[in-house]
């Protein structure tokens, strides 16, 4: 992060990320909010690239910009009244309070924490290192996360499945 290019890239990406995130809250049209949210996700991916975390950056684009956004789109499409306007809410004051608290906590932690700096060179290829860490040291949380996802998927199918046997559904 010393050379000029990285610093310029950092500030551009930071402005993009934060600006798009502000837009998400300010824009009234939900679809535009989703587009801005994706812009923000892409900005975060760019920030990962400036940190030489190429695998994380690409995973960010693939999962957040590619998949999560589509999930949000489907949620919007399937919600009858929310499809065109996100201005109706009675919770503005609590929302502002909560957001302020979260922002304060994050700012406080990041300013007060004693950040240790690693003197080591960056990894040549992050994907294989992450893969080995996930399947050796962190194999239990990894497997638990996959089982959790599977259970939630099955649960969603069971919840929305209409009554009746599959034969009748055909």
């Amino acid at each position, binding site marked *: 992060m010393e050379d000029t290019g990285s610093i310029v890239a950092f500030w551009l990406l930071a402005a993009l990320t934060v600006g798009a995130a502000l837009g998400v809250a300010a824009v009234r049209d939900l679809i535009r909010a989703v587009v801005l949210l994706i812009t923000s996700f892409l900005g975060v991916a760019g920030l990962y690239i400036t940190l030489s975390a190429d695998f994380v950056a690409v995973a960010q684009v693939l999962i957040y910009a590619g998949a999560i956004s589509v999930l949000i789109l489907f949620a919007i499409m399937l919600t009858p009244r929310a499809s065109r306007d996100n201005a109706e809410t009675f919770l503005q004051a609590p929302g502002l309070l909560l957001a302020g608290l979260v922002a304060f906590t994050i700012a406080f932690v990041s300013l007060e924490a004693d950040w240790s700096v690693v003197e080591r060179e960056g990894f040549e290829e*992050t994907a294989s290192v992450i893969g080995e860490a996930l399947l050796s040291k962190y194999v239990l949380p990894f497997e638990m996360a996959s089982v959790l996802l599977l259970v939630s998927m099955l649960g969603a199918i069971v919840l929305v499945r209409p009554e009746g046997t599959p034969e009748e559904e055909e």
Partner: protein
Amino acid sequence: MPPLAEWYDLRDLGNAVGAFLDWIRDQGAPDWVPYVVSGVIGILAILVWLLLSQLSFIWIERRVIGRMQSRIGPNRVGPRGLLQPIADTIKLFLKEAITNRHADRPLFWAAPILIFLPALTVFAVIPFGSGMSLADLNVGVLFVIAVSSVNTMAVFVAGWASNNKFALLGAMRTVAMLISYELIQVLALLGIAVFAGSMRIGAIVDWQSHFNTWLLFLQPLALVSFIIASSVEIGRSPMDISEAESEIVAGYHTEYSGIKFGFFYTAEYFAGFAISAITVALYLGGWTAWGLEEWVPGWLLFLAKLYLVFFLFVWTRGTLPRLRIDQLMAFAWKFLLPLALVNVLVTGAEVLIWREGDLSAGLALPIFGIVNAALAVALVIGWATFMGHLRPERRAKRAVLTQELGAIYYRRPAGPLGEA
């Protein structure tokens, strides 16, 4: 760093660029100038090549499909209709780009740009020759999938912003299809990464060159599912149901005209070239061809293979009828997905046997190739029989009247397991 060959050595186009950059350095420019210049040269070269390829393939595609469908095709503008693409382009530029009154104007304008960017960005990681890629990323394969997944959003924005029910229907179809087939693409490419031990596209081509084989022979099942999933992703027939003109006018770009439609059209071609290039690099040995690269420049071999793969897409478009949306979705989830999972499992087991057993590559790879080819055939036939798809009924036994659909169709839907 090895000394550069002479700049006129066409076997590696990087030589000319390298000589030019050296010349810039000699003029006493600061360090960042050659860096920026090399990027700009690469981008311009790729863009010019893409546009030229597109112009040629518009003509080739229309003529070839015309021949396949017993028509003549464009033959009026210029000799044999060769100037037709240029006339089309001028027409696209001159026609009015209409924005309908109830459209969401900013998003309506943003959609063509949004769809164009990923289609172009993919080419950054494609190696046209040894070392001839703009940025050979460590995670190249994943990058390709990630960038093309942003396409989904652009298509949806186009469909939504048009404020037209056909556009929205087309967009919803596209989103559903892309989500399903992206999974298959990832699973197909996983086998490649397992074999080559890297996600860097250049390294995968080097692996194929080193072991003197193409991954096509080791991953036949993955190649087939990748090509099918890709033709869904680039929206070409028989998978072009997101813009099926007989059902929903033109899908998500119904409301677009003039040059804005031109953007969608161009992006579709670019995505097609990108997918062909990835297929060539990952499955067909990239710029290598068993020693032929000693005699012919590697990038020419690459382009030749690329056009062959793209011709495959043209061919299927000209010959196969369009599928129905439910058939396509069922095909992804019930047919391709299990096969792709089995393929990943088999590939993993093979690499494990290879590594643990210390087999020599000359012994192991041919065996794996034969096993995988046999397995691919057996799995496709076996699974099709199991699902009851193997023999299509030539004469329907009886018409099935489905009250729910309010339509007649002459083939019983494939029953649950075993019952055909």
